């Protein structure tokens, strides 16, 4: 996954980030929990990095599985 074509999901709670990782991995998406990029403010220390092409699917999955998240940003 190239950094330049990635997005991150920011979360309020670390527990929600872990759940988001589980849900997206189970759906077969290529994701990784990374430290929140310094230029982005967030409530929790980890963010879920994903391929920007999967943006719609990631958002849909998180909403369908009731994972609370803060925002989605391109990095």
């Amino acid at each position, binding site marked *: 996954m190239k950094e330049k074509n990635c997005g991150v999901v920011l979360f309020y*709670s*670390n*527990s929600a*980030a*872990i*759940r988001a990782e589980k849900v997206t991995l189970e759906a077969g998406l290529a994701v990784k*929990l990374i430290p929140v990029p310094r230029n982005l403010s967030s*409530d929790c*220390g*980890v963010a879920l990095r994903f391929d920007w092409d999967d943006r719609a699917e990631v958002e849909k999955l998180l909403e369908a599985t009731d994972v609370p998240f803060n925002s989605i940003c391109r990095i």
Partner: protein
Amino acid sequence: MIYLDNAATSWPKPPAVAEAMVRFLEQVGASPGRSSHRLSVEAGRIIYQVREDLAKLFNCPDPLHIVFGLNATEALNLALQGYLRPGDQVITSSMEHNSVMRPLRALEKRGVELTVLPCSGEGFLEPGLIEEAIRPNTVMIVLNHASNVIGTLLPVREAGRIARRNGLLLLVDAAQTAGAYPIDMERQNIDLLAFTGHKSLLGPQGTGGLCIGPRVDLERLEPLKRGGTGSRSKFEEQPDFLPDMCESGTLNAVGLAGLGAGVRFVLAQGLTSIRHHEARLTQRLIDGLRSIPGLTVYGSGDAHQQTATISFNIEGLLPSEVGLRLDEGYEIMCRVGLHCAPAAHKTIGTFPQGTVRFSLSLFNTEQDVEAAVDAVVKIAQEGKASAPYQSQCPLLG
């Protein structure tokens, strides 16, 4: 050695529990939910999985609404002290453990109105009494799912229906039933479920928590503790979302790793099979004890109306003397006395002397039960004449 003190702490544990704890200490070790390196994330994953496994076991609608703490006592204190305010009325039963009674008595001094419903001598609660006790300011019904003294099951399902019909919250103390008896938060209308990890969930001591249902007003729920959560770190105010708002300070991650293994063991065994085994042994134990002359066995006598916890007394002997003889003469471990539930003992008529309590787990066998009954037969036959501890005690005359 026969361990019959599972209502206090279950033992032994499935080997997977210690293995998960060793694996955590040797290979993971880090703080969950704090740093963002791989070990911290892995610790977070291990703990999140425990939330999911518990949510499955209890049919809790949201795994993120399970907050971890030390035990059921801490969870009950969070629910009671965190939710009730002066002027509120709360309804409970006369079979409660002090983990419910003591916080409620303290809240009563601060202006919470407390109604304690009387139970029968066998520990049963007539659900109609709950409905009759409801007033305009009633906020919550608090019941233990089963007595820690005599195992009698309380009518949680009926209480849930009453709570829902009247717009009240139902808080269930599942210390004695989580992992041993089916619990379904949605079907039983349980809004707050307090559990401990170290009994029938087969985890280590120092693990437990509170499952918080969707009808609980989070704005009203005050955390017991405030502090670091690894989230909203630039703010000096406590987060207002679960589980973080009620999980300040580093969790007992190694303990929760063990709890997860215990819960998965329970899920793999299946509650039906665990319950079947325990009920069969319980009935055998009840029947065996009831056949002994000079013995009083408390409770209904019907294993299907209780957990695997049985209390009894031998005529002419103090519970403490019986416990000492069981340990020294037969290597049988049990608990004697009041079991932290004075109200329950007043209800069943054993206050203040208490009872001898045998409590089984899924690891006990028919041989254990037979050996325990045989030991009690012998102790009852020997009687007071050979009770050196008791006869030497000046306080007893």
